[in-house]
Structures are given as structure tokens and as C-alpha cells.
């Protein structure tokens, strides 16, 4: 394993690409960083100020260091769940292990970057994230492929353990290209009073992406939330859903997805909420905008409960931009195409995800260029 002294020692082109996935090369405003390029972790370190509060290292290194970590490996995600988990169980190159210590409140996010820069590579990753009781932290993870490498695939396992009264806010930004096949597999277990928020942003084309992260709210009063913002373009086939299993008394879950599909993209958004205990509250909302006739969106909201004292609801809407919205904005003096752009930009607004300012600016910039190119 090659370890660079600082993130900025990596080739400039690599860092430029990584920046698009939210990676701050200087490490400024970050409590810790890990960079996994192709099949090795080339950098991992924490900001000195956060020593004793967080730790970050390659998963394999962490497994060597901590005997107890093997109890966490393949606990949330099952190794034999499907062909992709089996592949990663058989062999993987590494991944990020991040732990926030008990009671630690970490105001700067941890960041990780998983990059593919080699044609035809099948990158296999296993990540384990532990938020110890009472801790509070945010993670930004960017997955990215270098431009024009002509194809590859990414199989990534992520297991999240949010312990009692801990809060973990996890944002994943995917930047693939039209030749990539992507199969992330992730699951979170949330204990009493814990809170897990998972944000997912995918604004660039991808050949074939399918993921269905799951959160189990095990403990009393535990909470989970999945937010996703997806822009399907070109010939992208995207299937991104999520499931929340509310097992703890009074636990709550929310799934929000905003999907735009244009050209010949097809986007499927399954969402499932299971209400399995007293006092559970859950809501799911999926809004889909179709910009072209050849594109498709399939929203599949599902609610299940076997208890009478739950409150669960869903809203799903798919269609083109409503005429009355366009007309309203035109009555404010905007030409039709600008009214459309404003609506699309609003639809892709990442404000709700609470990203750090620089990253938000980066994502806003991507949205701007998408909207201009429409």
C-alpha cells in the first residue's frame, strides 16, 4: 500500500476529478480523509484536531488492528445476499473504516473518495462505519470514474452502525459515466435514540446502476431518513430505492426522492416502509419529472404494517412539468425555457441535504450546467 504524505501529493488530475465528488484536497474543513484509487487506499489520515474523536483507515487495516471489528463485518449486509455481495465477500481491495468515538461531536465532515482510473476494472469495496453512542458526525463519500476510461464496474458494500443516541449524516455523490455498471449494497442498523440520514446525489450518466439501501430502526425512538436526487440522462438505467424497517417502538422513517429523466433514461424508484412496532411514524415521497417522451420513471411506493397504532403515508407523482407552473412563472415575465430551467433547478435543489458550503456550490454548479445544457 502506498501512502502519500498529504492528499495534495496525489496527481493534480486525480485531485481535480475527485473535487467533482466533493473531495477537498487540502483537507480544509474536513476532520479526516480517505482516498481509495482503483484497488488500493492511497491516502488515509485524520486532521490532528480531531484525534481521539474520529478515526479513519482502510478497512483491511482496521480489521487487522481491531479483533472486535470482525463482528461488524457482514452483520448489517449479508454476504450471501446476492451475486455482488458474494463477489465482494470472496475478494475485495479495501474500503474505508470510519469510527466516531463515544460522545464525540465532530463538526467537520469526514470525507472519502473511491475512484476508478483503470479501464475495465471491477472495483470491489467494503466500508464499515461506526457511530459510537452519543456521537454526532457527518460523512461525505464521493464515487468517481476518471474521464473517458471506457468502462468498468463498482461493487461497494457499506455497513453503518449508528449506536444509542448517535447521529450520523451520510452523503454519497456518484459521478460515473455512461460505460459504468454500479452495484452498491448498503445497510444501516440504528439503535435507541439514534438517527441516520443518508443523502444520495447522482447527476451524471451511468450505464446501469442498481441499489436498494436498507435501514433497520432497531431501538426505541430511532430514526432513519433517505433523501435522493437523481438526474437520469442519455441511456442511463437507474434503479435506486430504499427500505426502512421500523422495529423499535416509536421509531420513525422518511424517504424522499426527486427524480428527473430525459433522453432515453429509465429510472425506477422503489421505496418500502415497514411498520413493525407501536407508535411508528413513516412517510415516503417520490416526485418524478419526465422531460422527454423516450424517458421513463417508475415510482413504486410500498407501505406495510401489522400494527394498528402506526401512522404511515406516501405520495408519489410522475409527469411532465405542470403547465400551470410554467404559466405562472411566465406571468412573472420569464420566457418558457427559462421557466422550465427554474423549475428543473428547483427540483434538483440540494439545499435540503445540508451540505457544507463549498460542496453545495460544487453541486449547484453541476446543476447549473445541466440546466443550461437542457
Amino acid at each position: 500500500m502506498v501512502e502519500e504524505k498529504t492528499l495534495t501529493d496525489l496527481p493534480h488530475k486525480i485531485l481535480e476529478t475527485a473535487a467533482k465528488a466533493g473531495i477537498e484536497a487540502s483537507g480544509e474543513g474536513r476532520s479526516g480523509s480517505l482516498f481509495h484509487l482503483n484497488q488500493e487506499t492511497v491516502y488515509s489520515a485524520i486532521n490532528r484536531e480531531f484525534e481521539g474523536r474520529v478515526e479513519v483507515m482502510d478497512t483491511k487495516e482496521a480489521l487487522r488492528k481491531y479483533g472486535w471489528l470482525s463482528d461488524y463485518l457482514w452483520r448489517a449486509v449479508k454476504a450471501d445476499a446476492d451475486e455482488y455481495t458474494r463477489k465482494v465477500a470472496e475478494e475485495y481491495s479495501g474500503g474505508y473504516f470510519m469510527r466516531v468515538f463515544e460522545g464525540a461531536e465532530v463538526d467537520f465532515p469526514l470525507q472519502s473518495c473511491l475512484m476508478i482510473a483503470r479501464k475495465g476494472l471491477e472495483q470491489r469495496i467494503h466500508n464499515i462505519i461506526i457511530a459510537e453512542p452519543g456521537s454526532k458526525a457527518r460523512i461525505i463519500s464521493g464515487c468517481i470514474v476518471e474521464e473517458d476510461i471506457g468502462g468498468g464496474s463498482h461493487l461497494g458494500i457499506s455497513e453503518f452502525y449508528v449506536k444509542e443516541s448517535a447521529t450520523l449524516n451520510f452523503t454519497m455523490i456518484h459521478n460515473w459515466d455512461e460505460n459504468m455498471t454500479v452495484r452498491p449494497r448498503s445497510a444501516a442498523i440504528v439503535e435507541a435514540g439514534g438517527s441516520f440520514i443518508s443523502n444520495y446525489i447522482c447527476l451524471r450518466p451511468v450505464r446501469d446502476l442498481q441499489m436498494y439501501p436498507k435501514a433497520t430502526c432497531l431501538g426505541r425512538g430511532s430514526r432513519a431518513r433517505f433523501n435522493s436526487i437523481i438526474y437520469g440522462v442519455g441511456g442511463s438505467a437507474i434503479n435506486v430505492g430504499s427500505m426502512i424497517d421500523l422495529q423499535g417502538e416509536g421509531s420513525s422513517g422518511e424517504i424522499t426522492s426527486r427524480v428527473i429523466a430525459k433522453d432515453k433514461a429509465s429510472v425506477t424508484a422503489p421505496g418500502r416502509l415497514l411498520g413493525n412496532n407501536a407508535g411508528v411514524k413513516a412517510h415516503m415521497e417520490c416526485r418524478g419529472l419526465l422531460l422527454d417522451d423516450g424517458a421513463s420513471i417508475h415510482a413504486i411506493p410500498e407501505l406495510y404494517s401489522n400494527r394498528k397504532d402506526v401512522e404511515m403515508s406516501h405520495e408519489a407523482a410522475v409527469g411532465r412539468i405542470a403547465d400551470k407552473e410554467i404559466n405562472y412563472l411566465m406571468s412573472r415575465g420569464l420566457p418558457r425555457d427559462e421557466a422550465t430551467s427554474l423549475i428543473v433547478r428547483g427540483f434538483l435543489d440540494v439545499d435540503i441535504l445540508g451540505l457544507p458550503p463549498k460542496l453545495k456550490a460544487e453541486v449547484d454548479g453541476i446543476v447549473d450546467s445541466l440546466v443550461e445544457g437542457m
Partner: protein
Amino acid sequence: MVILRILDVRGLSVEVEGKRIIDGVDLHVESGETYVLFGPNGSGKTSLVNTIMGLPEYRVVSGKITFNGVDVTRKPIDERARLGMRLAFQIPPEITGVKLRDVLKVCLGLGHRDGLSDEHLGVVERLRLTDFLDRDINRGFSGGERKRAEVLQMLFMKPKLLLLDEPDSGVDVESLKLVGTMLQDYISESGASALIITHHGQILDYVKASKACVFMEKIVYCQTSPREIIKSIGERGYEHCLECNRRRAGDG
């Protein structure tokens, strides 16, 4: 050439989904005039102002709409808006992700990355909408809040002709005074014209209007003072307007 008549509607007939809803209407608003439109529920008053504004679902089958000397009958909505005609919707739509702040910037002609000035924020605060700036426009707004938001946008757009669709419906007494006063202040300062739809005339406690008519049975009846109309409708109902021989004819 001085344009004395800001809005000139002649022989206007309109269909929606093949059904005739406006049948040969003449309506004229002079420059600087505030004109009131009464009429029973469902009579088509909103359709009339929406047609004037150019909403596409209203198909003009005959007639002409001239705004400030320009024939706008076939012009798209945004062009009419840029010419200075602005509509405050009766039921404005909710738009996911588009914040009130974003729409205000559009009204002010600002770019989406520009900020609102202190002066603008002061007006927002006066209309008690500061907390709504970063909310999706109209989503979860009460009736009164939506009306205040419409008026706020109207004031920022500085129109030559204000089309106000029931600015006083569902508005509490305090909000009505605020909204009415601010609209009248704008009209007095700018010399703008207005066409106001109202049921009860409550907005007229604050906005001065000298002329009014009744829109029903697809045409316009009467042309007299708003107070006279309110009195007549109150005492004898809209049915009397049909019998009344002061039916409005097209004038030269």
C-alpha cells in the same frame, strides 16, 4: 402619441375545451383608472382576466385585446408580462423546489445567484413573509399568506396594469388593510391602472375605484360606481342586473 386607454377589450369571445365561456365582451380601462369586476361565483370573471393575461387554455375565438396600444391577442404570457401587465392569481400553484425567494428575484429581474437588497427585504417583512422566503412557493401557505405573496410579487414587478383576482378573499382584517394600503400606495405613486375582481368589495375600503361592472352570463353588464353595484347586489341580487336596462354596450 399619448395612450389614454391602458386596456381595450373588444368583442371578446373565449372558449375553454370547446365550451363558450365569454361571449362578445367589451371592457375598457383608462390610464390610471382602477376598475372593479363583480359577478356571481363561476360566472367567468377569473377566466376573463386569465384570458387578458394570455393563459393558453383560454382560446380566443373572436375579438381583440389591446394593451397600452399594442395588440396582445395572440402574444404569449411572458411578452404581455414584460409589456407591463401583471396578474395576481386567485389560486397560485405550488412549485416543488422553487422558493418564494427565487420567484421574487424573477419579479425583480435579478439573476438566481443575486441577493435581495435590504430595501426589498423590508417590504417582505412588512408583508410578514420573511419566514416564507426559503419555502417552496405557495406550499402550505394559508389563503391569506398566498394573497400576501401575490401582492408582494406584484409590487416588485411594478406593473402598468394590475390584474387582481380576488385580492380580498380569505384574507384576515389586518392583512387586508396591509395589502390594500400597499397596493393603493403603489397605484398612487406610479399612476398604474388596475382591474380588480372582488365579491364583497372589501378591498375597496383601501383601494380607490371609480368604475365597476358586473360580469355574468358570459357578458358584461352595467357600468357605474362600485358602491352602487354593491348596494344593488346586496338589495336585489345579481338577477336584477339581468333585468336592469343599463346593460353595457361597446362604446367608441
